[in-house]
């Protein structure tokens, strides 16, 4: 059982979507994330940089047929943090009022 832990880096809506999209994957190309999340290249780059700085994703670049491809994958730490965050969201979702809700700082 994963221990529930709120993670402010992951909780931002777009970063949460990036992590969720990457969870069932070994890796995904940058444009897949951009198309599925529905953000511009620069916004996605910023979010990926934040996740990468936290050690949650790893970026790999390669060239195929002269075209540069950028691949993004969740690290072990990223998977662990995401699972803990989802557990915390589940716990919060089960609360019936706001008294026990989480205060993030």
């Amino acid at each position, binding site marked *: *059982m994963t221990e529930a832990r*709120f993670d*402010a*880096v992951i*909780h*931002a*809506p777009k970063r*949460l*979507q*990036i*992590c*969720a*999209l*990457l*969870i*069932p*994957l*070994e*890796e*995904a*190309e940058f*444009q*897949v994330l951009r198309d*599925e*999340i529905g953000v511009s290249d620069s916004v996605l780059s910023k979010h990926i940089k934040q996740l990468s700085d936290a050690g949650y994703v790893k970026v790999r670049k390669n060239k*195929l047929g002269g075209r540069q491809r950028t691949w993004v994958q969740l690290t072990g730490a990223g998977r662990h943090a995401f699972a803990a965050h*989802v*557990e915390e*969201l*589940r*716990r*919060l*979702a*089960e*609360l*019936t*009022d*706001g008294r026990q*809700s*989480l*205060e*993030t*700082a």
Partner: protein
Amino acid sequence: MTDETRYVGPDEARSALASLAEAERAGRIRSARPRWFGVVMAFLLGGLVATPALADAEGLVSKELATIVLILGFALVVAGQRQRADAWPQDFPGGKGQTALALTITIGLSLALYAIGIVLRDAADLWWGPLASGVVAGALVFLLVNRERRSMLAPIDRTHSG
């Protein structure tokens, strides 16, 4: 980390869970292997198991050549699919132990079917024994690949543990 201090209530948590379930499903759909992948893998493995049927054939296709072509085919199909895909499913979705077990069963079953085909051909004098084994092996692989595909496309409920 954010500097802002705020409350995450049940509604926001539920909405976040719904949003991440949707994103996770999108990732699974993008990485689900195409339908033809199962057919090709079934044909290649079934062909490998059926190669003893060619043992006595002379001329056009030898058993050795067919084996080499089919093994190369495996490598090419997997590598080609990986190159053209823009998202690749996890290699060990159920953990390395579970994947190793599935691989062991698949390889063990294929070898057993290969041996059964040879026994049927040599001991029972049934020339079609290896072909029948190949069909069974191919069908098993097809079912396995399609099962994985269906599980990738299935809806996700993230609101409950497990």
